């Protein structure tokens, strides 16, 4: 599995478009609108974490399938389970550049001054909370084809970011606010905010994230079982 993760990391880090989208954009947003605000720091770190996880775990999988690369890997000793695990590890690791860049901008430019334990708590929450996004991205990559897959991942990313309140301000009208409370992005946002402020968080948010993880994980496994091209 490690050779695969290493291979995919090199591949991802060479992708300039990807780095702009996941590092430069959240840092830019933070600097433009949220300098100094803890809420903006957390929101942009969640942006980087969820985007990084979705794209790194799932982006490219559709192309790898179409080009026969996954079929080639299937005749090596790399088992399907290890391939899946590798993609998830990759997704989690690839959230780091964006998270670190946003935190660095907050420290250097926003003069945010958190105790080390809270920085660590924030990073820990974001890394763990990126898991359902990795699985979701992986499911999309295994299900959609070609360019549709890339587009689908971006659409899902922005939909979850907007619904979850990662981008945009204020409450959503009526029933939408209740939908917001069921999105994993919103849960992660609340969790991140609590970690940064040193507050306690209810178990409800953990429940939402766990449910999304279970759901997306089951979808990925079902998809793997029924597909012959990967």
């Amino acid at each position, binding site marked *: 599995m*490690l050779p695969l993760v*290493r*291979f995919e990391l090199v*591949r991802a880090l060479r992708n300039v478009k990807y780095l702009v989208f996941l590092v430069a954009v959240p840092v830019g947003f933070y600097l433009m609108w949220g300098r100094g605000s803890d809420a903006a720091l957390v929101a942009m770190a969640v942006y980087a974490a969820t985007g990084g996880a979705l794209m790194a775990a799932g982006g490219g999988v559709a*192309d790898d399938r179409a080009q026969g*690369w996954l079929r*080639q890997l299937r*005749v*090596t*000793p790399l088992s399907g389970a290890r391939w899946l695990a590798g993609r998830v590890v990759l997704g989690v690791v690839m959230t780091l550049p964006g998270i670190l860049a946003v935190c660095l901008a907050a420290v250097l430019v926003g003069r945010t001054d958190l105790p080390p334990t809270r920085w660590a708590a924030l990073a820990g929450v974001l890394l763990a909370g990126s898991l359902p996004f990795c699985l979701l991205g992986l499911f999309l990559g295994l299900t959609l084809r070609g360019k549709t897959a890339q587009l689908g991942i971006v659409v899902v990313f922005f939909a979850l970011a907007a619904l979850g309140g990662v981008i945009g301000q204020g409450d959503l009208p009526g029933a939408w606010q209740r939908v917001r409370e069921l999105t994993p992005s919103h849960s992660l946002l609340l969790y991140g905010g609590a970690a940064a402020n040193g507050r306690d968080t209810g178990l409800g948010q953990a429940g939402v994230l766990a449910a999304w993880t279970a759901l997306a994980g089951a979808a990925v496994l079902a998809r793997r079982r029924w597909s012959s091209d990967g």
Partner: protein
Amino acid sequence: MERAAVEFHEVSKRYGQVRALDAAGFTVARGETVSLLGHNGAGKSTAVALMLGLVRPDGGRVGVLGGSPAKAVARGRVGAMLQSGGLPDGASVRDIVRLACGLYGGRRKVGEVLELAGLTELAGRQATALSGGQAQRVRFAIAVAGRPELLFLDEPTVAMDVEARREFWDAVRACREAEGTTVVFATHYLEEADQFADRVVVLGHGRVVADAAPATVKARVGGRIVRCVLAEPDPQRLLALPGVTEVTVRAGQVELRTDDADRTVGALYSAIGGVRDLEVTGAGLDEALILLSSGKAA
């Protein structure tokens, strides 16, 4: 040590209505190089997919290196070049070879594999910027990165020109000689089977229609066809012409199968005469396979 590298025991595989393999049976001994020969749709790729555990047989049994195909693959004892396998974008040749070496647990060094597949000069090139033949060599590199005991090559030289083909087979031969690797390759080129295999298993319509030394198969399916029109063809006299092995006469239309077209044609003009509409063609593999399937050429 196991008796055979590959065992096919009455193996059948259907895809919907299509019978890809129909009670096909053959074995490949350790250290042997065997060619699976047949036209498109004869069942070659299905046989390779079965040997790699990519599909399961509907009937019969497939054994690889004394166990199941999936187990042999999981242990890294098998290397394969698939027809439908491809290379990823955003990665250099060296990246891919390094990954392959890593997946097989570092049994070979990256430089060694690059050298073996003739890719040293191309190591920095993006995989998507390679020619068809070069890409095939990368897939060969992946297949041999784990020092496999058994190597499956499914139509390995399809995208290659003559020179690339020669270099490719040199590399396979080097592997075979250095490691005693067992090689099974599928092809629809009779020449390739003849030059590189110890034994040829001919598949036709999902069945094994011949299993013999290359020379034997070549004698049966090779040769040329001479067609012409004669006023009064006499099958007995035609069969006596030099090189002729088989005669078919249909309403003045004559078809001669020969292993020496030059002498046959010469004798046709000098000894028989009145030859019209002469045509010499290679006996196509398809044609030969139909003959083999129906047992006429045996």
